[in-house]
């Protein structure tokens, strides 16, 4: 098989470029909806300030959108360039989902984004509003398809291995589409995007209010962001909890790793708030636990077990042994021995576990006890990073719930401008949704290791046949382009935030002499 360095470098490149892409995606998801809301208010009330809000926040959205497009291209290329065997192995399922995203989402958002910026004088009010909403729908539909694709990687339903073509093939599109993991993930992720947009608008508006500039403009933006943000952050948390429940059903190892749950305790399981996971000795030091809570999250009951990692590892051992039989019979089948078919069918579901052994022996069937033990250890991801990143994500979520709750309350009581502590907090907390989103993806993807397709295709088999030199070339290129682009993007973003609505040159805002325009 391939050297560990190739697998490591490929993972590093994909991880970093995907996380980088996701700096821009959530803001796009959230901003387009907020723009839609602001413009709806404009069309209903006819007040120019709302139009200015759409135009100004739209400018910031545009700076961000360009980066989203740029970095999104990378991901589409990268499945083929760096994960070629993955692409061959699951292209039959994964490909149509990406193509659907192209047909239903990319075209919609990319075609209408131009009209959003340049169509103001060429469209009626209602037409332009329609364009803005189509743009917003396009971005969320895009998230739908890619999360169905990602949901399938976490919980591959509706597909089956075909021994004649040596790959997974789709057996039920409905199962893939209505995959519970994907549905929950979609709502959780788009709502997180809406939170990101809200936090961004809220924080920047707070900064204007603190500086006592563009008060009317900022106050209206602030109210919309706090209302939309509160609704969204509640959805994120509720769906996050729902995510815990579906994981309890479908991704037991990931859930146990997040909770650093080494042993299966008598039901109902308690939730470890904090502690220090010790991978080597398979225990958690200094754990602070709340009884019942994990059992409730993961099983929605008080009498079902939440399996611990030690027991889950034992299950892996069994599945690896079954996977060896699957692999053995697959070789016979391919050599033309059709009598091996029933045995292959019986163990087919564990073929992926057999492939885990490819890391230790190319033949798979000759694996010894030691190799099986190693492969079983591999099925347990690194617990400590998951444990901590998950808690960072949750802490960010609840902090934002507090902020949106308070801002919404003070907006309703019309005293938000006077709560300077809250305004300051909103400014300083602008990074929180990004931290939450990045740590969230870290948990989802690292928690799935050692698989690219959970239980089906190990990560170390998924890579392209490349050399380390090739990977260093691409990583170097990404590092160069992405660094330069990020500096430029941040510079422009800050410049336009400072300019504020005066950048529209309407003559109505701070820094603009009354006579201007």
């Amino acid at each position, binding site marked *: 098989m391939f050297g560990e360095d190739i697998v490591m470098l490929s993972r590093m490149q994909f991880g970093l470029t995907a996380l980088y892409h996701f700096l821009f995606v959530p803001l796009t998801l959230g901003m387009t909806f907020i723009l839609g809301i602001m413009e709806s208010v404009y069309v209903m009330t006819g007040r120019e300030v709302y139009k200015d809000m759409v135009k100004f926040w739209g400018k910031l959205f545009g*700076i961000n959108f*360009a*980066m989203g*497009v*740029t970095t999104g*291209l*990378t991901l*589409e*290329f990268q*499945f*083929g*360039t*760096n994960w*070629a*065997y993955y*692409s*061959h192995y699951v*292209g*039959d*399922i*994964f*490909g*149509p989902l*990406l*193509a*659907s995203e*192209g*047909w239903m989402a*990319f*075209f*919609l958002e*990319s*075609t209408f984004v*131009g*009209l959003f*910026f*340049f*169509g103001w004088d060429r469209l009626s009010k209602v037409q332009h509003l329609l364009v803005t909403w189509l743009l917003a729908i396009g971005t969320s539909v895009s998230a739908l398809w890619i999360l169905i694709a990602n949901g399938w990687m976490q919980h591959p339903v509706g597909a089956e291995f*075909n021994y*004649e*073509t*040596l790959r997974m*093939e*789709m057996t039920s*599109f409905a199962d893939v589409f209505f995959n519970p993991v994907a549905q929950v993930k979609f709502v959780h992720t788009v709502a997180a995007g809406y939170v990101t947009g809200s936090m961004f608008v809220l924080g920047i508006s707070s900064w204007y209010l603190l500086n006592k500039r563009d008060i009317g403009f900022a106050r209206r933006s602030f109210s919309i962001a706090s209302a939309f943000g509160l609704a969204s952050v509640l959805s994120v948390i509720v769906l996050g909890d729902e995510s815990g429940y579906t994981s309890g059903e479908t991704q037991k190892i990931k859930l146990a790793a997040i909770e650093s749950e080494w042993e299966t305790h008598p039901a109902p399981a308690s939730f470890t708030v904090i502690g220090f996971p010790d991978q080597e000795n398979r225990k958690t030091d200094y754990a602070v636990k709340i009884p019942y809570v994990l059992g409730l999250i993961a099983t929605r009951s008080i009498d079902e077990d939440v399996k611990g990692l030690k027991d889950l590892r034992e299950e892996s051992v069994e599945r690896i042994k079954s996977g060896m039989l699957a692999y053995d019979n697959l070789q016979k089948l*391919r050599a033309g021995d059709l009598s091996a078919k029933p045995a292959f069918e019986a163990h087919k579901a564990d073929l992926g576990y057999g492939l885990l052994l490819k890391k230790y022996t190319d033949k798979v069937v000759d694996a010894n006890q030691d190799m099986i033990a190693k492969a079983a250890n591999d099925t347990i991801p690194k617990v400590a990073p998951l444990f901590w990143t998950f808690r960072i994500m949750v802490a960010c979520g609840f902090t934002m719930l507090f902020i949106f709750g308070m801002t919404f309350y003070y907006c309703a009581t019309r005293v938000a401008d006077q709560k300077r502590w809250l305004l300051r907090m909103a400014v300083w907390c602008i990074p929180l949704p990004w931290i939450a989103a990045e740590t969230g993806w870290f948990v989802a993807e690292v928690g799935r290791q050692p698989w690219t397709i959970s239980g089906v295709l190990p990560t170390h088999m998924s890579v*392209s*046949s*490349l050399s380390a030199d*090739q990977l260093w*070339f*691409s990583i170097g*290129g990404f590092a160069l*382009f992405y660094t330069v*682009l990020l500096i*430029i993007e941040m510079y*422009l973003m800050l*410049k*336009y935030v400072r300019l504020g609505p005066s*950048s529209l040159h309407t003559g109505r805002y701070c820094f603009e002499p009354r006579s201007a325009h």
Partner: protein
Amino acid sequence: MFDYETIRVIWWLFIGVVGIAFALTEGFDFGVGTLLPFVGRNDIERRVIINTVGATWEGNQVWLILLGGAIFAIWPAVYATLFSGLYAAMLLVLFSLFFRPAGFDYRGKIEDPRWRNTWDWCLFLGGSLPPVLLGVLVGNLILGLPFHLDQDLRAFYDGSFRALLSPFALLCGVTGLLLTTFHGALFLKWRSEGVIHDRAVLAVEALGPMLLLALAAATLWVFVGIERPEITQMAANDAPSNPLNKTVIGNGAGWFGHFMAHAWMWLAPVAGFAGLALAWWLGKGESRMGAFMFSSLGIAGIALTVGFGLFPFLLISATDPRSSLTLWDASSSHSTMLLAFWITVVFLPIVLLYTRWVYKIIWGSVTEASVLKDTHTLY
């Protein structure tokens, strides 16, 4: 609905349609980017040029994304082999595309001549490097790529990046650049007035003969200088996709022989050459839309010529002919192809309808006056 063999042919046509749509639409965006620093001599002229494509380039680029996505969905093995095999080349295409979104969107955000001039050259690179690289890629599709598949259908690439840059492939790269620049000049002419319009006409006049010459040279080279493999035995056209179930010899009846054996295929190169020649003839004169339409016909003809020429191959292996991928043995499963077919049948017309609406809304000549009128909103 459709049997496996039929749907394989339908999808071969559909992917051709998507590829042609990409070449036609992003083609003129690339061309306008290439011409930008030469046709526009100062900031306002360059803003006029950029805004001829400013509102629509993003939608056009989706055809490229969709082309990638459709190949992934329909010919996963092609997607895997091509993108990983031509690793450095594909990344260079990607990196050159990076210049475009930021170039369009960020250029106008700061009023500093050095800033804007830098982005103009970035847009030039973003408009000229992809057609060169994709031209080189098409050249190598015709020459065949050095790759093989192992027993697990894992693709291994046995060549180097430098080996892609053979004289023939470089000729194809130059042809690609001439094609998009010519097409872009016709588009620019259509959507501008005055000095930009006149310079675009000069570009059309100069580029036309060079393009036709390059195409003729490449065609001749293919017919006399390049071998074409031949399938001697393979599983049925509706068999499960496994490329290793066939026998291929490296040297068959040749490309010319292939066209002679399927005489109707000659329509494609005829449309290609005639379309481009007419586009040049009309483009030198008053015609705006007519010349552009003929150039579109020409590009479609050239794209179909390559597709027909390769048929039934998708990727030819130069080192292990048996590993070559064809539309019969490198496709996704029957049900996936049917699913993707229905999605396409529903969404292709919808996309075309709203794209047409958007073009209708923003259509009209872009002039210095129109740019200055909306100077704070336009690029």
